[in-house]
């Protein structure tokens, strides 16, 4: 096989030019003409209350107000994995900021003013603001109707409790394992909530035209999933899937927050209330903080049993997730984490209880890492402590227990090919792990930290991707997929795959943004699975085109197709050196025969990829027997820090992250994910800090007080390391990476802090204040 010409190279992004010229359009940039209406939401000021009455009279009377709607106008449940949510609160509100009503007006100022005139009377209920209170015996039930909620078969809601889902994993015999162990050690780790903070806020425009078509333009990672949920939720209004169209322009950052359906359903629903006019709803930054998915909080109790030589024999994890008021998406985070909370290690006896707990806080949901960052903080901290107690080097400890290809996973099936050992070795080498480098400054102290990570895409077993490829008259291509360009650069990667198969250069390939009318189905752009799933679909579509081309050439010219191949946009022959038939000559027009008739016609390729080996069915009490995860991407990260002992401030001279991507289709873009992910992860470790008051109100819904990294906050040196142990079912061997680069950040920092100071901090964030005061109190 000759060298790859496009795949594996650092191609320039094909969406680069629109973005650096300002041409790239995001949802708020789209124009809808003078008929556009604006919606403003009326929100609950209380965390938990019954709605007694809503008086919309004054608001409705305001000039230029078109309509005021409340929950009773849309009594439809919806949700991705569980139907526990309404478009507007019905009989009660469950978190501060929950939408109770909406005003639709001709201009934003009127909408805002009128929204203030809507009077809602509440009967306040006690609010449950932490997991402990939610789990007390005979608790106040946040969802008394839990029993009646439709949900996917792999969820296990506990009726008459606030536990929306309980994932139980039982492998081997942990009690026996602990008995065999030379050391048994238990501790508790807490991780608070975090916000995605994409710089573009959520927004959507809905238009229900007079023919009955509903179109929604949304800043969304999931146009087809949104179409599905809109069609399901609004079916009582007579809409079917074909009548619902979702168009997604460029998205200004997703990180999971723009997946599924959160506020976008408002655009769909409100559009039906003002048929004929498009209506826009755009979230403010404050709403972005308190009324979109948040990364859930976690309290993790971890108990490990190990032999003197460092072999892990047993692991018990009790994971209690603060999942918020609605868990239609977040419960799957709890599920995914539960299945993988062993980390990338070979452990024969495992007991995991991962509980999704309702609280009166904003809904938890998908966030880059999907539960793995949360549980890995505790697990990787615990592993370090365990190694320390045994007097073993923490890197060596991990190498000894590292999961290898073929090892059994927590739920029975087997680990895919993985270069974890190579990642461990390379990450350690990159920061000279064994070299002790004491600080030259008496006020500071240096340390090194390490963490391994893994993650599998958390998807339903039938998550699929499809692709169309159309040739144009000049031999250029349009690739139609419904994956979303949220910044990761997937469009370029798809173009590289199509280019490799069809020998058309990237400058002649466009990858189109999703329009559910025109682009074929994609489940969602989440789970770091697009390169793998959509990449496979695009490769198949390109191969389909190539098949059509070769078949046509054979039929038209009467020669054997095995003789032909593609090179530089031309059909060439192995036996006739002079033979050259440019694709542009026939890709639309077909090939003309001697008698003037034509053969062929427009070349249009189709590809579809859906894994047929994945299953969510397993034993409800043990999780054994399923194959819920298609494969894991693994890696390791190492960091060198320097702490100022008086201020607690931490600087990062060097951080390395090695990840096994199977095949880096565009290595530069993968390295970019490493930089971006590490910076985001390090911020959660050091200063991102969500604060709620005693009544469940978010105190810092802005960038003034929820700090995300600036250019001055980046580590001094970032060392991305790409390892390539091929994924057999991936396009060119590629495996997903996107979320992964954030996952090891927090535990790696916690471990480095412990290494530097001998102080183990078990709760996030590990702020300068926490460190300084811990040092002070230690004295």
């Amino acid at each position: 096989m000759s060298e790859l010409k496009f795949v594996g190279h650092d191609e320039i992004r094909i969406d680069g030019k629109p973005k650096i010229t300002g041409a790239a359009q995001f949802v708020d940039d789209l124009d809808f003409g003078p008929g556009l209406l604006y919606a403003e939401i009326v929100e609950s000021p209380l965390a938990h209350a019954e709605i007694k009455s809503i008086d919309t009279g004054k608001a409705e009377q305001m000039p230029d107000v078109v309509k005021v709607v409340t929950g009773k106008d849309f009594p439809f449940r919806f949700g991705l994995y569980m139907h526990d949510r309404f478009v507007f609160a019905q009989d009660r509100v469950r978190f501060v900021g929950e939408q109770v009503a909406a005003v639709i007006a001709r201009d934003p100022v009127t909408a805002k003013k009128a929204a203030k005139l809507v009077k809602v009377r509440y009967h306040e209920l006690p609010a449950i603001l932490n997991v402990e209170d939610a789990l007390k015996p005979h608790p106040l039930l946040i969802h008394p109707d839990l029993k009646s909620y439709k949900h996917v078969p792999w969820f296990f809601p506990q009726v008459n409790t606030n536990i929306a889902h309980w994932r139980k994993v039982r492998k081997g015999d942990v009690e026996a394992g602990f008995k065999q162990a030379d050391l048994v050690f238990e501790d508790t780790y807490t991780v608070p909530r975090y916000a995605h903070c994409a710089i573009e806020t959520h927004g959507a425009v809905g238009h229900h035209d007079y023919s009955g078509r509903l179109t929604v333009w949304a800043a969304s990672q999931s146009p087809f999933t949104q179409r599905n949920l809109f069609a399901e939720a609004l079916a009582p209004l007579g809409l079917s899937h074909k009548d619902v169209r979702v168009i997604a322009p460029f998205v200004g950052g997703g990180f999971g927050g723009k997946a599924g359906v959160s506020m976008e359903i408002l655009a769909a629903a409100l559009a039906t209330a003002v048929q004929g006019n498009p209506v826009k709803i755009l979230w403010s930054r404050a709403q972005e903080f308190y009324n979109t998915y948040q990364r859930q909080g976690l309290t993790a109790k971890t108990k490990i049993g190990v032999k003197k030589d460092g072999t892990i024999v047993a692991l018990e994890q009790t994971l209690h997730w603060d999942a918020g008021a609605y868990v239609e998406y977040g419960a799957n985070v709890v599920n995914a984490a539960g299945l993988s909370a062993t980390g990338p290690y070979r452990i024969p006896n495992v007991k995991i209880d991962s509980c999704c707990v309702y609280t009166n806080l904003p809904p938890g949901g998908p966030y880059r890492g999907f539960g793995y960052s949360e549980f890995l903080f505790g697990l990787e901290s615990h592993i370090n402590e365990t190694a320390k107690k045994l007097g073993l080097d923490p890197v060596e400890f991990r190498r000894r227990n590292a999961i290898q290809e073929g090892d059994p996973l927590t739920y029975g099936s087997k680990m895919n090919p993985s270069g974890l050992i190579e990642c461990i070795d390379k990450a350690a080498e990159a920061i000279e792990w064994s070299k002790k480098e004491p600080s030259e400054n008496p006020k500071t102290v240096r340390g090194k930290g390490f963490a391994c990570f893994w993650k599998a895409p958390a998807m339903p077993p039938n998550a699929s991707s499809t692709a169309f490829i159309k040739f144009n008259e000049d031999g250029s291509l349009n690739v139609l997929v419904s994956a979303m360009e949220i910044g990761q650069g997937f469009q370029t990667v798809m173009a590289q795959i199509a280019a490799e198969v069809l020998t058309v250069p990237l400058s002649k390939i466009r990858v189109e943004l999703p329009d559910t009318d025109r682009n074929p189905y994609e489940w969602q752009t989440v789970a770091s699975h697009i390169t793998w799933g959509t990449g496979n679909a695009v490769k198949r579509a390109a191969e389909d085109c190539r098949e059509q081309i070769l078949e046509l050439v054979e039929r038209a010219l009467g020669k054997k197709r095995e003789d032909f191949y593609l090179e530089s946009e031309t059909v060439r022959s192995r036996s006739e050196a002079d033979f050259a038939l440019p694709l542009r000559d026939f890709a639309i027009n077909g090939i003309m025969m001697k008698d003037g008739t034509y053969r062929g016609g427009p070349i249009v390729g189709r590809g579809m990829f859906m894994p047929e080996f994945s299953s969510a069915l397993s034993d409800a009490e043990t999780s054994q027997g399923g194959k819920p995860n298609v494969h894991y991407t693994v890696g390791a990260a190492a960091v060198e820090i320097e702490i100022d002992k008086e201020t607690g401030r931490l600087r990062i001279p060097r951080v390395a992250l090695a990840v096994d991507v199977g095949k880096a289709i565009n290595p530069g873009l993968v390295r970019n994910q490493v930089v971006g992910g590490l910076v985001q992860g390090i911020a959660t470790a050091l200063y991102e800090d969500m604060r709620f008051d005693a009544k469940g109100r978010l105190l810092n819904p802005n960038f003034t007080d929820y700090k995300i990294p600036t250019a001055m906050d980046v580590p001094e040196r970032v060392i991305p390391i790409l390892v390539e142990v091929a994924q057999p079912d991936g396009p060119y061997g590629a495996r997903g990476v996107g979320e992964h680069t954030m996952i090891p950040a927090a535990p790696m920092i916690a471990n480095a802090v412990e290494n530097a100071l001998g102080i183990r901090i078990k709760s996030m964030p590990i702020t300068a204040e926490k460190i300084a005061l811990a040092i002070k109190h230690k004295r």
Partner: protein
Amino acid sequence: MPILSEFEYFKPSSVREAVRLLSKYKKPAVLAGGTDLINNLKEEIDQPDAVIDIKGIKELGGITYKNRVLTIGAAVTFSELLDSRVIQSRFPVIAEVAKTVGSVGIRNRATMAGNICSAVACADSGPLLAAYEALMLVHGPKGKRRALAAKWFKGNKRTDIKKAELVTAIEIPLPARRHAGCYVKLGRYSGEDLAQASVLILALPGKQYRVALGAVSPVPVRASKIERLLNGQDLSDQLIAKCQALIPGLISPITDIRATKEYRVHMCQVMFARGIRAAASRFSGNGPEYGVNLI
């Protein structure tokens, strides 16, 4: 986010005209950089009946140094302070303070006068002007007056300004033939932040010092007690420790979502120690460059 309230807008070209407008309206707001006011308008914290834009008044736009007094016009931005040659050469600690305010895009608009008129407890200009014993030049219907910094700040977001008055300049007297200084500001990370605590130190000839603390009381604190201990003495670890011990008694920091009281007190002590050594060594000519972050 649109601004819901409606107001008149004026851009007078003289101080006199501005004062006249301020007298005429019941709830006027002065607009210079807008980085505080516009946000307050959006959040409905301020609902003025008129906005008086002072950027059209030429005499408010200059930085002058005459008779050993630095005069900073009310419309002078933090960026202009950074670019000023006279400040760089004679009052470098002012540039050090200016550099910590927001980021370039904020500094291109925000003014020191606006900062001291909003008088939020964490204002960076507060301890600066307290230490320099600066004067606010104020014009009003009854004429003009000067208010000493120590009398200017009355409480969190409260100043000595009276109805229809306009701050037209800040006057900073040169404290000595030669002096050095240091500003240390506590933030949560390396990017722009509002001070959770700040220390401003001036080192004057004869081992004289001026010490002011910001963001740890409703108004900037001039630490005269500490100055009395320091003045005339060589700096030593013991002397610095004695000064640090006085700090908790001089300040009244709060615990909020940005920092706890304990950390603020602790950091004031750390920042004082580093700041005073830096100021003293800068005075001797061998200190760290201005603008280097000491914490």
